[in-house]
């Protein structure tokens, strides 16, 4: 009996420590998420200040909106869900990862300027560098599918201020982090259930037995707690 009690208590302690660690991690990630969102708002406000009040609003949203982020969600055996945010692969996004300045170079106006530059180049020394880069961009296959994955920045104009790009970068990080927070929330709830079950088991072992064979655990079930919480709210 004593050995069993010790084992049960040890399991309960381990579970409780794990639960505390998860809560701490959740708090840390939450803090980071909140500060990134704040950064994003600040950048949006700066962009609104420089572009004009109505230039950064819901009116600017595109008529066709395609998602560029998907979350892979899967339910594990213990019932908790795992989320993983993945960005839709597109060469343009790859360019932006390699060199953020490349994003600014895409646009019909600039292509026209470059064409004029190519015809003027008669000097053979300059030819190998400039035309190659131009051709490689123009004939790159993902450009054909660009309309399907249009960068939301374009809704607000072609030459958007740097602050709007910063806002986009902040919110991209927020999206990745929100998938992590969602996973962690699921883990916390699963551990809570486990902890509740272990606590129930321990109470059952220590509780005095009634004459009818039932034990008075004195411990509420999760359902009871949830019902109470719902009635309180």
């Amino acid at each position, binding site marked *: 009996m004593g050995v069993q009690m010790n084992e049960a208590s040890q399991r309960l302690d381990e579970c409780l420590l794990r639960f505390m660690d998860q809560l701490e991690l959740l708090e840390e990630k939450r803090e980071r998420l909140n500060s990134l*969102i704040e950064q994003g708002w600040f950048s949006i406000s700066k962009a609104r200040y420089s572009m004009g009040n109505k230039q950064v609003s819901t009116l600017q949203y595109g008529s066709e909106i395609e998602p560029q982020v998907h979350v892979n*969600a899967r339910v594990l055996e213990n019932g908790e869900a795992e989320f993983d945010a993945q960005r839709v692969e597109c060469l343009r996004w790859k360019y932006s990862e390699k060199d953020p300045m490349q994003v600014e170079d895409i646009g019909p106006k600039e292509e026209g300027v470059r064409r004029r530059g190519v015809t003027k180049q008669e000097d053979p020394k300059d030819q190998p560098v400039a035309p190659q880069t131009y051709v490689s961009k123009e004939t790159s296959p993902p450009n054909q599918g660009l309309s399907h994955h249009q960068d939301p920045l374009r809704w607000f104009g072609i030459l958007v201020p740097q602050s709007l790009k910063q806002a986009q970068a902040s919110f991209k990080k927020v999206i990745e982090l929100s998938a992590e927070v969602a996973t962690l929330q699921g883990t916390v709830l699963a551990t809570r259930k486990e902890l509740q079950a272990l606590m129930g088991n321990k109470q059952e072992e220590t509780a005095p037995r009634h004459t009818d064979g039932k034990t008075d655990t004195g411990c509420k079930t999760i359902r009871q707690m949830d019902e109470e919480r719902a009635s309180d709210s």
Partner: protein
Amino acid sequence: MAGRGKLIAVIGDEDTCTGFLLGGVGELNKNRKPNFLVVEKDTSITEIEETFKSFLARDDIGIILINQFIAEMIRHAIDAHMQSIPAVLEIPSKEHPYDASKDSILRRAKGMFSAEDFR
């Protein structure tokens, strides 16, 4: 849908929605139904609740992000949601900072350590 992954839905004020849409979460599906709701001053609680429930019912949504002050308006609906997918994440808004004591997940976790549980 399984191969493609799920979407992130947003219920929030203008700046929150704009930010997340800039990040690339937005979608207008074939029926022109968005996966976001911009809550303005004249948006009714019924509309918010209906949108939230419609997001819960959609099988292509994995995470619902909602401003905490809006979540407070439909707290009963959020508390009633017990499934792990879609996950509901409460986020701060410009005028209402995040309050952990109001978060439905943390309130559930906090419920573990009330005095009654240790009787």
